[in-house]
């Protein structure tokens, strides 16, 4: 039995000091390893091609790009459910495989909100990896859950069933779950879609408080305005990196035209307005 526990328990990884939080080195993902699940004779056809970039501890990064640009595949790569066909992904100097410090906040459409769990239950799920097999939550775990909920201003929601929340509240609960997980790298897939401005503000305020704890946040979004205003750096992606850097450098007309080729139109005039039809009619930006 003891052997079973050690064999099944995750290996605890120690973070190498001085290493980037996240570092990709010439990473390729072929379609066979990526989202399609179908082996194509993909002669040089990659879901992601030659990605090299690094993220520093505590940074807030927006990943933008048209539909099918590979944002979700990139996240799966970082989580470790997709392995690169070539190249290396490192988190604090180790491959993703054994880290338990990576949290993924799913798109709301991927979650079954009729699931029989209260807010408290969902946040406690973040503790399961640390509690370990054949053990039950202790007082410390319950305290972590309580303080995580307090940090996202959701203590009063603890006993609600998760279906009884607004969209913004749901997102905050999943951030609380990541806090309970003691995550250091937080990945969020389209967390702002469908949220009103006050809810978005609230989420950015919470993300702002995470910076002090050295939590790194990577957000996939369709909203170029938000990417420009609320993030330290922007990664413009379309199967390969079009540009990576400070928002004002990345979100330039030539870059956006390259990333969104078919989906962007230039309206000539005083400011050269670039209209980008990113997702659902949103995502217009001045350049």
């Amino acid at each position: 039995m003891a052997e079973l526990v050690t064999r099944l328990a995750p290996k605890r990884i120690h973070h190498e000091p001085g290493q980037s939080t996240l570092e990709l080195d010439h990473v390729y993902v072929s379609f066979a390893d990526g989202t399609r699940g179908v082996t194509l004779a993909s002669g040089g056809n990659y879901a992601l091609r030659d990605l090299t970039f690094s993220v520093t501890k505590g940074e807030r990064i927006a990943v933008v790009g048209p539909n099918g640009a590979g944002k979700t595949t990139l996240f799966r790569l970082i989580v470790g459910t997709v392995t690169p066909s070539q190249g290396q992904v490192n988190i604090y100097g180790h491959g993703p495989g054994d880290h338990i410090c990576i949290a993924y906040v799913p798109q709301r459409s991927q979650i079954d909100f009729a699931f029989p769990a209260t807010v408290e239950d969902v946040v406690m799920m973040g503790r399961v990896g640390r509690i370990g097999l054949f053990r039950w939550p202790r007082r410390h775990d319950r305290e972590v859950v309580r303080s995580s909920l307090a940090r996202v201003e959701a203590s009063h929601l603890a006993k609600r069933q998760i279906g009884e929340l607004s969209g913004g509240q749901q997102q905050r609960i999943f951030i609380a779950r990541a806090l309970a997980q003691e995550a250091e790298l937080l990945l969020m897939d389209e967390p702002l879609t469908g949220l009103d401005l006050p809810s978005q503000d609230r989420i950015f305020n919470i993300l702002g408080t995470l910076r002090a704890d050295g939590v790194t946040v990577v957000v996939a979004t369709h909203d170029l305005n938000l990417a420009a205003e609320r993030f330290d750096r922007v990664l413009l992606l379309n199967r390969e990196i079009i540009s990576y850097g400070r928002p004002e450098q990345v979100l330039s007309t030539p870059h956006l035209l390259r990333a969104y080729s078919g989906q962007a139109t230039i309206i000539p005039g005083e400011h050269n307005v670039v209209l980008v039809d990113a997702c659902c009619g949103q995502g217009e930006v001045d350049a």
Partner: protein
Amino acid sequence: MTALISWFADPLQFDFISRALIAAIIVGVVCSVLGTFVVLRGMAFFGDALAHTILPGVVIAFLLGWPLAIGALIFGIITAVLIGVLTEQGLLKEDTAIGVVFAGLFALGVALLSITGNYTVDLAHFLFGNLLGVSRQDLLVTSVLGAIVLLVLFLFYKEFLVLSFDRVLAVTLRLPATFLNYLLLILIAVTIVVSLQVVGIALMLAMFVTPAAAASLMTRRLPTMMAVAAAIGAFSGVTGVYASYYLDVASGPSVVLVATAIFVLVFLFAPRRGLVVTRL
């Protein structure tokens, strides 16, 4: 009053009825508790398939005089591996693969059984159960295996909870997902063996899905959902056996009909979520 007591007590003077009642309660509880995970993970079709694909294993074990559980487990694992192989390359959708394996192995089981002498009676027992034929030894096996299933579910409760709610979380917490998936599958296979005599292959799915579905309409947390499902399962078992005794109905269908009736009542009248309540 005495009439009522004797109505309940009279059948109990027959040992086979007492044994049937105990077996029905155990199966009602074990199937329903495990069934909550089957329902939450959307594995109903898979569960139904597994109930059918273990037939060749059960028949072979039956013919060789082995414990039926061994044959069922072997074919449960064969089923899982076959479905895995068929879907792996992305050439077939999962439900298509399940369908192919389901029908093929079930046909193999029926064919094997047809070679033996007592074909019709045995097939009816496998398909619809033989609750009134539960022996003392059957009862022992049912209790022990049922207890093991509940114990394993208890031990891995929080891991199964995470895996059912959010697969990606299970990955980022580095839970042993493959191990847990196979474990759940083995638990389903064992539970099918435990329930074979009570409801039979054809109605197995009802014991997994119906009490859990009714419970899901009344509860907000998994532990209470499991408790309510178990209560519905046990109540259906007991009521089904009595109904079978007094109305002279086959026992397996009788148990399932009681569970279905409870589901319909809950669907209509559940507080907050029932159809009648929400429409008023």
